[in-house]
């Protein structure tokens, strides 16, 4: 088991290295002059003399051979110098650090209902196979899976904000923002809702949740449908397996048969598609944050694209890819925990 995890960990830097290759090659599609805008504050850029510009190009190695340029770029990357962000009006890394907590908070909150409700509904449907509830859940799943999150998000905004006034867009209300940025407020985890709780501000926490509800609903909807479909079909297959019959033949309660013997086996295929879910949730934040005006990495990415802010864009690619790689690692470990047969290979 440990050996398995170690081996997966050793692969991690290799994949990250590959990602820098992709990012760097994409960068090379821009000419050296345009590239410079990815490194330097654009207000400065116009005022600089041609000599100064040359010097800067030299500093970032834009005139060098490809391989030298790549190494220089990597060095800057390791120092945390990702260039200048047009969108954030500050260095890219700083701009990202301000935004990452909002995205992580959203993704984490969305993950739990997705996994919990999705699996629960899937198991429910499989136990009541071909009964009305199964048909209902199936239709819900197929329609849900076909509902693009940005269309769904627009509907959520229209109904739950415009019509009902329940889930306002944005990060939090203005009064909450003031408390949040006051010096007495301690930022412990940097996840706003959690910090609100840790500071004992229940009102602030509720306000955060109200602003999170719409985005969470939008983000999790699609993946409920997805996880539920996979869980249902894999449960149906597992329930036909001989070992489930063996468990019943032992005289075990049907609840034990389902929850102990069937569910764990049914989770194996679910785990294999969890990678797709991580990609989906992370990509979903782009759309959801754009629609609900949340200042996270997703909206940052969208804005950077709209303003042709290449430095920020590449920072975003690094962020999302790293999350994806780490997510896949966690999934692999989970996979090995669930299925003892994996641990050998």
């Amino acid at each position: 088991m440990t050996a398995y995890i170690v081996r997966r960990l050793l692969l991690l830097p290799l994949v990250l290295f590959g990602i820098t290759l992709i990012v760097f090659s994409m960068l090379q599609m821009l000419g050296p002059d345009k590239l410079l805008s990815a490194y330097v504050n654009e207000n400065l850029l116009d005022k600089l003399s041609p000599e100064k510009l040359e010097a800067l190009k030299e500093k970032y190695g834009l005139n060098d051979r490809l391989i030298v340029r790549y190494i220089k770029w990597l060095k800057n990357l390791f120092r945390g110098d990702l260039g200048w962000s047009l969108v954030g009006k500050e260095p890219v890394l700083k701009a990202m650090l301000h935004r990452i907590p909002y995205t992580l908070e959203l993704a984490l909150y969305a993950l739990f209902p997705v996994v919990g409700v999705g699996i629960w509904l899937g198991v429910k449907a499989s136990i009541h196979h071909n009964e009305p509830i199964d048909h209902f859940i199936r239709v819900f799943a197929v329609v849900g899976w076909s509902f693009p999150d940005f269309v769904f998000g627009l509907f959520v905004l229209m109904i739950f904000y415009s019509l009902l006034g329940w889930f306002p867009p944005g990060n939090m209300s203005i009064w909450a923002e003031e408390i949040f940025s006051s010096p007495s407020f301690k930022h412990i985890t940097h996840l706003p809702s959690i910090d609100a709780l840790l500071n004992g501000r229940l009102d602030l926490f509720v306000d955060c949740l109200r602003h999170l509800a719409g985005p969470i609903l939008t983000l999790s909807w699609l993946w409920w449908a997805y996880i539920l479909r996979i869980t249902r079909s894999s449960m149906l297959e597992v329930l036909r397996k001989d070992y489930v019959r063996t468990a019943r033949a032992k005289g075990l309660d049907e609840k034990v048969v389902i929850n102990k013997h069937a569910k764990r086996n049914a989770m194996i295929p679910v785990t294999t598609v969890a990678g797709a879910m991580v990609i989906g949730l992370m990509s979903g934040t782009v759309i959801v944050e754009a629609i609900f005006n949340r200042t996270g990495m997703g909206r940052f990415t969208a804005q950077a694209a709209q303003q042709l802010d290449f430095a920020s864009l590449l920072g975003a690619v690094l962020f999302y890819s790293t999350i994806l790689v780490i997510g896949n690692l966690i999934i692999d470990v989970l996979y090995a925990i669930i299925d003892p047969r994996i641990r050998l290979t």
Partner: protein
Amino acid sequence: MEKKKILEVRNLKTYFYTEDGVVKAVDGVSFEVYEGETLGIVGESGCGKSVTSLSILRLLDEKGRIEEGEILFKGKNLLDLSEDEMREIRGNEIAMIFQEPMTALNPVYTIGDQIMEAIILHQKVSEQKARKIAIEMLKKVGIPEPEKRIDEYPHELSGGMRQRAMIAMALSCNPSILIADEPTTALDVTIQAQILELMKELQREYGMSIIMITHDLGVIAEMADRVLVMYAGKVVEYADVRDLFKDPHHPYTWGLMNSIPRLDVEYERLNAIPGVVPDALHFPEGCRFRNRCEFATNKCAEEPPLVEVKANHFSACWHIDELRKTMKLAQEGETA
């Protein structure tokens, strides 16, 4: 000494309601099992022998339904029990082992966990105690180093070891009846013999009854005291094992026996029964064997009753006399 009846199945009818129609998988089967004996149920695949055993434990899938009949276990009709009462029987009074030890054991739990589960459930003992019993059982079924093997997963054991683990699991609660559904079919020939020997030994020790389900007459000859021959959901012959082999009274049984190659006879070719088992959706009217039977006449369109042809020997055929004449001729031909 009169033996005690422990299980009696009367006129069992189990049907499956599929999209294509009703499959009468078991259609009016009756038999009894006595204490400490082994009843063999033999037939080709699809004859209803597995469905019969699953019906006894009421473990049919959602499409299968027991339409009629009684299953009397120690005088109680199992079909009248509630699901809770039935669970008390399963694994505790009547245990079952299956054909594929690979798929019949849950791949994500250790074999110890799977054995102890039944012990804790039925014997209401602590986990440590259950573990001790489980190790004891593993030792009994001949698994070496049981203290170590108990924490291994099914995929870490060989096929024969898995089947031994299955047997340990089934016998851990000391059941009165063990149903063994093709327990050796998936195993190598040498392992087969070992497993059968083990089952006989354990039967002597525990005194349980065994229902041995198989398509293999060799296994029947080795294990069974009495035999039920099934064809297409019906009982065609029912007799003591010796009597059945010496003196078969049904063309199907005779055909099965002829299809076993014998070392002492030279063959032009093996005598397989011609034709195939009829489609379960469209069994022929009357005698279901008649489209493959060399003795079939118009009479066979009428269903033959299962009658006692001699003491404790039952057969369902209209043409037993013709069969016996032919058998006699064949025997004479062989000795000549």
